[in-house]
């Protein structure tokens, strides 16, 4: 409760134009921010994307409405940055290269299952990040950041029914993007494993 009150105060000061308060808010949520951008990038590029998200947020701070959670607003911007990154030609090139480098030539005997599972999760997050914004934001905030439908609806300024509809549409879109796994794999951790093992 105390933390929430402190957040509220910071939000009020940030929306009033206080850069210190805005930076403090971003710092509080930098873990969330990092998780969003680290879903699509590693190392310095993730750092770069996180900074880009903070700057975009700072520039758009006048558009933030106090009735929606600041963390959700920040995550939405970070997801937009991740989306732009996923859509870039540079990303596609690097991803293809890494995929070719990382895939072992033979069977995946003794592979670290947890690492593969994490990579599968990352793939799902990348696919969500690549969705159009109206589909991406509700799915990301609801499933990955734990926000409720009503909070997302307030953030988007749309009725809850619209948010549900978009989530449904987004999941349909995802099912086609993850078709190789949806049609075959019985569990979420299998896709990365399968992808590596079938490569010769």
């Amino acid at each position: 409760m105390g933390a929430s009150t402190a957040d509220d105060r910071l939000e009020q000061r940030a929306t009033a134009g206080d850069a210190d308060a805005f930076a403090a808010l971003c710092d509080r949520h930098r873990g969330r921010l990092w998780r969003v951008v680290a879903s699509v990038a590693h190392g310095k590029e993730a750092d770069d994307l996180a900074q880009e998200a903070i700057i975009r947020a700072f520039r758009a701070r006048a558009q933030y409405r106090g009735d929606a959670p600041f963390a959700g607003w920040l995550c939405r911007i970070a997801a937009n940055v991740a989306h732009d990154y996923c859509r870039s030609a540079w990303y596609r090139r690097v991803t293809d290269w890494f995929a070719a480098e990382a895939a072992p030539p033979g069977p995946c005997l003794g592979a670290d299952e947890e690492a593969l599972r994490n990579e599968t999760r990352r793939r799902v997050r990348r696919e969500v990040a690549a969705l159009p914004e109206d589909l991406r934001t509700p799915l990301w905030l609801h499933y990955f950041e734990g926000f409720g439908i009503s909070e997302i609806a307030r953030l988007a300024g749309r009725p809850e029914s619209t948010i549900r509809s978009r989530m449904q549409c987004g999941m349909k879109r995802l099912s086609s993007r993850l078709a190789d796994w949806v049609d075959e794999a019985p569990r979420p951790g299998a896709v990365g494993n399968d992808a590596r093992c079938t490569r010769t």
Partner: protein
Amino acid sequence: MHEDLTHVRHAGDPRTLRVEAALRDAALYEPVGEPPADMVQRARSRWARRGRPALAWVWRGATVTAVAGLCLALLRGGQGPQPTANVTDARRPDPPPAAVAPALAGAGGGEPMASPAGPSRPLPAVRLVAHRPAASKAPRRRVAERRGSRPPAPRGAAEQPARPQWVHETVQRPPSGVLAPVVILEQDPASGGAQARPGLLRILFASDEGTMDEPRLGFVDTMGEEEQK
């Protein structure tokens, strides 16, 4: 944590159920590494620099392709009304504008720069007026040689020195992270004069095709300060 979305999804649709299971599982994703402790601070230093008038002069030592990338980054990142930066070819720098020549002389202008090492200093926001020299004849000559035809004759008796080629369409994108030695010319807000200091720009490419018309570039100096897009 998650609300019941049965009314959202088609009840019993196995594909949608699997997607939802994947989404719930992906929520458990553990990113590699920790968020940098100074992430917000560095982002803040970037936004604080926006709009500050400054000059950047790319001097000797940088590769042509690095300069090309830097030009793209500056062109994309330039904001504000006043053109206050200039970039020339690294190998054959044109004479600096008269207004900045004294400052350059103070920074050892005209001589190849050594890579500076020093304390962290903020890199100002920059705006570029790209110096776009005439396209070189060298590529045409190479093409002619490849085809076996006669290369174009030089205009004068003596062959013209190679002109800067960084605006040529065949310029390749430099590898991400390349360092470009520069002299940064800042405008002193108090006196209005130019102050010169050496620096290294590290050019990061978030995305691009290596072309002039579709860049999304960023560059960072060696001290971690950054200007992007």
